[in-house]
């Protein structure tokens, strides 16, 4: 069938050429039409001799032949590409490279449940396509657009290859709910990012404002990122291309804390074990990673397809931290009934194995005694040097004798049917399952001094399965009424999420040999350091939604939508919420001639979105298994032992969604025939009914329903209280192809000014804290002094402490008297704001250069106005007594202090930075004919240098606190660089890609 089609289309093309040549035989011109972005042949291009009806069409390989008159000009046109005119002169061969029509206003932007032309968009939406993605070894999809979208922060402090970036769109939107943007992959709402390999992504569209995100209702508050994967393209006839892309990268440690050398340490009075070890060097290595990506895409008849396989083998700068990932994706589309009935199948399988270490090895590699050897005689600790000092573990031993592995499989299946019932009306049914299964194993050797030694070896296995099933039905009606174009959408969605898993842990092993594979070698299976547990939960989200888009004469635009959401996890008195949005825009250039201004659209939008509670079972009082009570206290008699039934949560029948109301005003502009394009946005947002785990009086009747709910056994319950507000200004501009002699330069700049989130209130009635103090520096000695206070009326996440004013002659801290109590001791009630971890602004500046076949691009990125608490300095730079077991960190800010480390402004640093985040250099090797085309070699560098005054590991913004497992409190404690931060890395990549026909 394919062959027949290929054959017939070639014959047809040849016939066309033949016919035209007979009619206008004067001068014969032939050549090939290719796409400028990837060099692929474009079949079906219309080629017209200007001012005549003489024309031709390129064949399946992009070749054409036409006979023209003298002084002819050929006009090449094809949908999605800029029209190009070529004066024939006396040329007989003309090869044309068509430029994709990216800057034109007909660019299509993916919005929720559909697409819209960019010129019609009336809310804040940014689309980034593959050619603008960051280069290099990008293992996470969102890393591709770091620095590309104003207002979108993608941060991954440190260089752990197994850590996913933290995302924030327009800053913090919630702390109780999900603070990362909702991910939609090929229309599948809420799909896991783990399903998609960065190589397979065609475009990423970011819905920034409330109006754009409102179609996603109660999950839209943190913004939405829509990922469209590459698929086979129709309209080019039958074809099949094989693409290969492969690269090797090398990771090096970019930054670490400086510490005293062995001799300096001894000179300072440290215990001398007689050796000299650079612990950090012993822990780290040069990591070599490789990636291979092969895809086949093509079309045949009414069927288009794309299949891809990606294999990544990533090794970090730390020995024992790595992952291997195999990702396979198939997308298949078939049209029947003259294209009225369309089937789409998308299958993804992702198989990932990873290995990691106890990250506190980084801390010990920094502070472990530099005079200690790695090994000594004696088998108790496996030959490693160990001493029984407080918080003192050989980092090399720690990284080798504790083992953590994870295997994860993701499977995303999507089935879609679309049917054009009548003209202008399309119905679609979509069903998808997104399943993740995981199996983790951990083993602490019998000889691991930190943990395994005491418990005689310890092994853990756990497995889980998370499944999301989503059914959606939509109907879309699009019709023009004279100058008014309309599009209406209604839909229904039903989502069920299931999570379940179990874990087993045993201890006291005779041999380390089996590790977690032989968990039943553990002699002790009950009690401390053992575990037998399971969990299962399910929730249901049902939604109805509708939207109308109106376009009058391409000048006035209006869009309105509403989504109703009912969630099983809401309290029984608050089952359903509604999320409306409206936006409008006007294209001024259609109304008045603005000279060089080729595009000027003003828009305004208003939208309401929500955040779901962080778990589905928070609204109800739950009873779980407490400990076991042995009535006679004698463990040998078992008949009198009962698992106690313990109330583990207090219910709240009024629990509901958080509600964000956002107003966005924006301008899209274009100058000089849209050579210079850009946009500006200003937004204000108010988040009310914030989900909060509030303190309630233990023992008292339930505050939400004292009659029916049980009395408060625990001292907290989830409730909607309080509100925060924030605002911001975003600017984006790009100048396409500035001519610098033979070099084309395309600079793109975006920046954001944040009006940081302000806490308006934390209270509804008597519930909620007057203020919330969070995040202590930690052990040793700084366990009880919270450094962050969230206080109504103030910026979220303010750091409170005394202001350091100097040191006295004995090296003791000196603080102004206003921070001290009557006894001369620091008084926390007198502390002041000494910093804030949220940034005032961020920017990204991309510069793309091209010269013949060479292209160069770099991204400068940065953030300013944010502070970081440098934990390493806060614990380990003082010359106090404990330094004879711990090494000291040394920075250019290190003073001579002999007091015990105490939190103060001394350890808060301005972490504003500019980073050369990404550089790539590519060369497209010209290839004449043959099966190979688009041959390209490239090199890339990531994180090449950073300009900052910050003296810690990574000045990157910390939106959450990694040492706080509670996501709610973690989000309220920004700006802390903890001591187990993974070293930052610098990555160099060398790659090649080509296409085979």
């Amino acid at each position, binding site marked *: 069938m394919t062959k027949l089609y290929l054959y017939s289309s070639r014959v047809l093309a040849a016939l066309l050429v033949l016919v035209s040549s007979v009619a206008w035989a004067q001068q014969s011109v032939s050549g090939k039409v290719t796409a400028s972005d990837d060099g692929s042949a474009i079949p079906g291009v219309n080629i017209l001799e200007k001012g005549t009806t003489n024309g031709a069409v390129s064949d399946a390989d992009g070749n054409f032949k036409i006979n023209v008159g003298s002084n002819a000009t050929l006009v090449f046109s094809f949908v999605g590409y800029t029209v190009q005119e070529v004066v024939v002169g006396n040329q007989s061969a003309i090869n044309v490279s068509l430029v994709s029509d990216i800057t034109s206003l007909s660019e299509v932007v993916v919005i929720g449940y559909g697409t819209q032309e960019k010129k019609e968009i009336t809310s804040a939406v940014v689309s980034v396509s593959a050619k603008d993605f960051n280069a290099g070894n990008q293992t996470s999809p969102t890393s591709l657009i770091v620095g590309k979208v104003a207002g979108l922060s993608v941060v991954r402090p440190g260089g752990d290859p197994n850590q996913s970036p933290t995302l924030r769109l327009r800053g913090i939107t919630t702390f109780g709910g999900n603070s990362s943007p909702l991910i939609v992959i090929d229309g599948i709402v809420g799909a896991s990012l783990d399903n998609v390999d960065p190589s397979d992504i065609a475009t990423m569209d970011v819905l920034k404002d409330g109006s754009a995100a409102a179609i996603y209702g109660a999950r839209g508050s943190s913004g939405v990122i829509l990922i469209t994967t590459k698929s086979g393209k129709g309209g080019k006839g039958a074809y099949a291309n094989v693409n290969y892309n492969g690269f090797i990268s090398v990771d090096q440690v970019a930054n670490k804390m400086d510490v005293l050398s062995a001799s300096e340490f001894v000179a300072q009075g440290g215990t001398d074990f007689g050796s000299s070890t650079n612990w950090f060097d012993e822990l780290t290595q040069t990591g070599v990673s490789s990636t291979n990506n092969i895809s086949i895409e093509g079309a045949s008849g009414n069927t288009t397809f794309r299949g891809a396989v990606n294999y990544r083998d990533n090794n970090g700068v730390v020995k024992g931290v790595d992952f291997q990932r195999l990702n396979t994706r198939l997308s298949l589309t078939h049209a029947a009934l003259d294209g009225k009935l369309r089937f789409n199948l998308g299958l993804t399988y992702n198989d990932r194995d990873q290995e990691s270490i106890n990250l506190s090895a980084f801390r010990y590699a920094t502070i472990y005694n530099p005079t200690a050897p790695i090994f000594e005689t004696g088998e108790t600790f496996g030959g490693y040097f160990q001493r029984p000092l407080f918080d003192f573990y050989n980092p090399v031993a720690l990284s080798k004798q504790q083992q953590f592995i994870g295997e994860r499989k993701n499977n995303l299946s999507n089935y879609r049917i679309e049917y054009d019932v*009548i003209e202008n009306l399309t119905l679609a049914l979509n069903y998808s399952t997104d399943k993740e299964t995981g199996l983790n194993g951990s083993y602490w050797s019998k000889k691991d001094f930190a943990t395994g030694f005491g418990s005689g070896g310890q092994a853990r296995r756990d497995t889980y399965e998370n499944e999301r099933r989503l059914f959606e039905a939509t109907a879309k009606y699009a019709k023009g009424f004279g100058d008014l174009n309309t599009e209406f959408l209604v839909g229904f969605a039903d989502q069920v999420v299931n999570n379940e898993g179990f874990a087993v842990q045993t201890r006291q092993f005779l041999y380390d040999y089996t590790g977690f594979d032989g968990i039943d070698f553990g002699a002790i299976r009950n009690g401390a350091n053992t575990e037998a547990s399971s969990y299962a939960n399910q929730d249901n989200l049902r939604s109805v939604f509708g939207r109308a888009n109106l376009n009058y004469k391409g000048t006035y635009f209006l869009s309105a939508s509403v989504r109703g959401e009912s969630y099983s996890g809401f309290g029984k008195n608050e089952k359903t919420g509604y999320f409306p949005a409206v936006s409008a825009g006007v294209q001024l250039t259609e109304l008045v001639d603005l000279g060089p201004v080729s595009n000027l659209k003003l828009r305004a939008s208003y939208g309401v979105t929500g955040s779901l509670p962080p778990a589905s079972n928070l609204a109800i009082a739950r*009873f779980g298994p407490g*400990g076991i009570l*042995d*009535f*006679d206290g004698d463990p040998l008699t078992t008949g009198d032992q009962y698992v106690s039934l313990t109330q583990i949560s207090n219910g709240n029948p009024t629990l509901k969604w958080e509600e964000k109301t956002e107003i966005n005003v924006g301008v899209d502009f274009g100058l000089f025939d849209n050579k210079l394009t850009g946009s500006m946005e200003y937004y204000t947002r108010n988040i009310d009914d914030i989900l909060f785990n509030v303190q*309630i009086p233990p023992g008292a009747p339930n505050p939400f329903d*004292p009659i029916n709910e049980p009395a408060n056994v625990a001292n907290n319950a989830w409730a909607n209280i309080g509100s925060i507000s924030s605002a911001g200004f975003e600017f984006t501009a790009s100048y396409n192809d500035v001519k610098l002699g033979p070099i084309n330069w395309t600079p793109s700049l975006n920046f954001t000014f944040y009006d940081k989130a302000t806490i308006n209130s934390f209270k509804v009635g008597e519930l909620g804290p007057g203020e919330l103090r969070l995040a202590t520096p930690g052990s040793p000695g700084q366990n009880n002094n919270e450094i962050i206070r969230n206080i109504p009326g103030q910026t979220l996440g303010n750091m409170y402490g005394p202001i350091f004013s100097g040191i006295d002659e004995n090296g003791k801290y000196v603080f102004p008297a206003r921070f001290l109590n009557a006894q001369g001791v620091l008084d926390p009630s007198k502390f002041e704001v000494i910093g804030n971890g949220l940034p005032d602004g961020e920017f990204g500046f991309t510069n793309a250069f091209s010269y013949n076949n060479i292209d160069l691009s770099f991204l400068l990125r940065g953030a300013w106005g944010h502070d970081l608490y440098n934990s390493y300095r806060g614990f380990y730079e003082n010359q106090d007594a404990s330094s004879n077991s711990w090494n000291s960190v040394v920075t250019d800010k290190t003073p001579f202090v002999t007091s015990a480390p105490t939190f103060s402004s001394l350890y808060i640093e301005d972490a504003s930075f500019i980073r050369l985040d990404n550089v790539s250099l590519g060369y497209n090797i010209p290839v004449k004919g043959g099966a190979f085309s688009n041959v390209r070699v490239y090199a890339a560098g990531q994180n090449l240098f950073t300009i900052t005054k910050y003296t810690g590991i990574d000045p990157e913004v910390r939106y959450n606190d990694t040492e706080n497992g509670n996501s709610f409190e973690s989000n309220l404690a920004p700006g802390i660089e903890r001591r187990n931060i993974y070293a930052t890395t610098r990555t160099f990549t060398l790659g090649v890609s080509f296409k085979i026909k």
Partner: protein
Amino acid sequence: MNMLNIRNKFLAALATIMMLASCEATDQELFDEIPQDVALTTADATALQAFAAGAYKPLVGNWGGHNSLWSLHEVSSDELVITQKGADWEDGGQWIRVHQQNYQPAEQSVGNGWGYCFSSIATVNNLLKSFGTNEILRSELEVLRALSYLWLIDAYGNVPIITEIDTDPTPPTKTRAEVYAFIESSILNNIDNLPATKTYTTVNFFVAQAMLAKLYLNAEIYKGTPEWQKAADACQEIIDGGVYSLEANFFDNFKSDNAASKENIFVINYDKNNGTGFNLPQMTLHYSSQATFNLQQQPWNGYASQEEFYNSFDTDDARIRSFLAGPQYSSTGARLTDLSAEPTDPDGADLTFTPEINMLFPNAFRQAGARVAKFEFPTTSGPDLSNDFPIFRYGDVLLMRAEALWRLSSGSAEALSLVNQVRARSWSGNPLASLTADALLAERGREMFAEGWRRSDLIRFGKFNEAWWEKAASLPTKNIFPIPQGQIQVNPDLVQNPGY
């Protein structure tokens, strides 16, 4: 195929789906936990046992761990201290403030102690709401609730009284005298329904009598008028019951498998596997002591005895083994060292627990202070002990009766005999010739060390506000702890105690 046909089927299917699917989400189901309507209605005999277990389980929670009500009682008294060792154990100054009786409403331990008692009260109230018609269970639960109030009246004084019939989400503060009356009536109304047989982990007739004894013994403090005779009578009920007697070996009451103790009347049922939370080896031992007991985890080097209190023990008194002092050795007999010992520490790097402590803060020696060893630390212990924690003990009952009789008549021969009976077990051949306030208090100190009663005893003997090591004289308002800051924030009907 007929296109119209397909279209109709498609439309029909869509319409059906949209109609079938109600637009309201399903109710939230639980799979790995139990909802209220199931949990509090299933009432077969076994379930009732489990519920009863659930009522006692909150007691296991945070009693024998760090930052607990026990920590507050001990560190605010003259028994134990947590010194600041450079950066280590600074912890925001909480333990220095507690030692100096300068505790603030925001102290974590003050909040923890409150939550500990009221969680138990709420659990009991929820069970009473559902199963209150079972008279025997009701009596047991009401007395158990009174036990939480006994702790509350002693620690916080003025607290809200909440029963199963209350519906006010912000229950108001009641005076200490009202709380006293509530405890007394809760016990007296129910005591005759309780079994007069040994129960050990649950409430029986004798536990209720022991509670009455504690209440009456401190009546002068709690409500302003003494009840010495009632205290003596309650103790006599236990003595007359004949169910309990002194163990020959004092330390058998505190060993790891102490379930057979003839002396322990009511315990918190700790178990290293099933009832965790008693973390004493971690809390008191030095880091290097891990090798002495082959502990699974490195201890924290926190709680130590105050020197003067340690010195109140005679070396011939077997109870001095309640401390770990002197040179320390590994389980194989090797001398332990602390390589991080301060250069100024006269004991050098060899680990020696000296009763003398050089300072409270900021640079106390890491080795300073005798450690708590009254409870057995079995070799290879994890952080959680299996030793059941005695709350009421026959030895205490004898001393309580002795004190009550002595208060009634300082020359009481029975009082002297009871004290000497307890004393002779551990320190034979050294009977007291007569009773004085100081002698009684010191004897209680030696017998009851680290069992959580010292603060209450010092207050009753009028010594709590006196100055002692690294602690100035304090105001009588310090005899009760502040109402936790967090509680006043969420319940505006609470009244802060005077002086805070």
